[in-house]
């Protein structure tokens, strides 16, 4: 079970799209998994032949647990499980190993009092974790920060009360965004930019095209962000284990609001290499699959920067929260008609306010401002996009 987001703990296998004996190639979609962010298509990591499907549809599988056995060319099937060859056990299990309960049992002790470190208490309160359901791993069984971070949020809830998909999604968003705000030192740069040239360019371009070939302003924003990020590399990549790793391609995550609430930000893979029509077609495809719940695992995990746009109507500015392990998010407000000075004359123009949220562990204002300037230059020459 691959991790499809920093805070994912398990996924439910919905269906297999392969069977034993099938040949698979890296990148093939082989299964559908239900997560807090909806149904996601799982891609295989390697080439080979499906030997055995070890997980059954309907099962909740923790991240990291095998779902299937895939043999590379020439590879022998693994030995049967120890139970099948009891005479010669491959590994010896402790004789009285107890099954791990699905939910940790409450530790013995006075009701309402749980031994926990101050940091763990604060974190538990922030995340809505009930200390009573945690087993402490600190000295003398004290609950420490790591115990809280590894706990299911809202542990007070019994598994017999299933949460609605929208509740699950809100919890996933809450967990990711809380962690982002607590661990990433955000800073913000805003610039109001004249997008009249871009709007006029699209009006001319779309006028003689059938609806299926028209391009939205959002696609121009994605083009400008992709090109700017491929040049200003310090905003494009992942911060992992204390180190920034710039990405060599730009996979912009596009925040898509879901009807009924919630949002996902699947990535447009290698968007810098696309032209404007390809970008628009890829966005249409991504949005429709986000709405119907058929995104790929890679699209959920390989984004290198995120774009969140309020569309054509709405508030004029938005400072987004960085989606870890990324290091920047570009928030674009809805276009507004404002008095603007052009060559000494005040004229009405459509403007948008771009707000770059960036990670101060990786960059600072001087570098981030180069990204904003690059975006502004690009969006004012829409023909070049």
């Amino acid at each position, binding site marked *: 079970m691959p991790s499809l987001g920093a805070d994912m703990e398990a996924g439910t296998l919905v269906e297999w799209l392969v069977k034993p004996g099938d040949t698979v190639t890296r990148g093939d979609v082989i299964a559908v998994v239900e997560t807090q962010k909806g149904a996601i298509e799982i891609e295989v990591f390697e080439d080979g032949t499906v030997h055995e499907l070890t997980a059954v549809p309907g099962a909740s599988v923790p991240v990291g647990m095998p779902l299937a056995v895939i043999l590379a060319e020439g590879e022998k099937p693994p030995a049967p499980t120890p139970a099948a060859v009891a005479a010669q056990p491959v590994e010896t299990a402790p004789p009285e190993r107890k099954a791990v309960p699905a939910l940790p049992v409450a530790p013995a002790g006075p009701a309402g009092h749980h031994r926990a470190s101050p940091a763990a208490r604060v974190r538990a309160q922030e995340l809505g974790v009930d200390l009573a359901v945690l087993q402490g791993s600190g000295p003398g069984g004290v609950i420490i920060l790591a115990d809280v971070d590894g706990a299911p949020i809202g542990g007070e809830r019994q598994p017999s009360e299933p949460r609605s998909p929208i509740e699950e999604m809100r919890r996933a968003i809450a967990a990711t965004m809380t962690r982002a705000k607590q661990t990433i030192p955000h800073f913000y740069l805003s610039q109001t930019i004249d997008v009249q040239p871009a709007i006029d360019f699209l009006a001319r371009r779309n*006028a003689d095209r059938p609806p299926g070939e028209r391009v*939205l302003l*959002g696609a121009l924003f994605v083009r400008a962000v992709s090109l700017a990020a491929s040049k200003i590399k310090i905003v494009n990549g992942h911060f992992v284990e204390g180190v920034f790793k710039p990405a060599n391609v730009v996979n912009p995550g596009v925040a898509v609001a879901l009807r009924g609430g919630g949002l996902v930000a699947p990535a447009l893979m290698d968007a810098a290499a696309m032209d404007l029509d390809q970008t628009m077609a890829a966005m*249409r495809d991504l*949005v429709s699959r986000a709405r119907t719940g058929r995104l790929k695992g890679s699209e959920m995990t390989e984004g290198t920067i995120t774009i969140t746009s309020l*569309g*054509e*109507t709405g508030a004029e500015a938005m400072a987004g929260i960085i989606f870890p392990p990324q290091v920047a998010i570009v928030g674009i407000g809805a276009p507004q008609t404002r008095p603007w000075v052009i060559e000494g004359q005040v004229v009405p123009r459509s403007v948008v306010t771009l707000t770059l949220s960036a990670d101060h562990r990786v960059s600072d204002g001087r570098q981030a401002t180069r990204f904003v300037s690059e975006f502004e230059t690009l969006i004012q020459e829409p023909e070049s996009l």
Partner: protein
Amino acid sequence: MNKAEIRAIYLQELSRIAPDIEPETVGDNDHIQEDLELDSMDVLNLVTALHERTGVDIPETDYPRIATVALAVEYLKGAMQ
């Protein structure tokens, strides 16, 4: 194509784009963006679908004229003649 048929196509495509919208609950004067919360991508997909189904190539400047069921039926009926 008569008005009832145009209306049925419009509602069908609307609920295909936004499956949570039940066609029978859509009022004649419900605005697709202000009331039904379609975004610009949804509107473009609706326009594309209406173009495929009715042959009317709705230019961007006419989007306000398909913004409600009532407006769209009149507009498409007129454009198809």
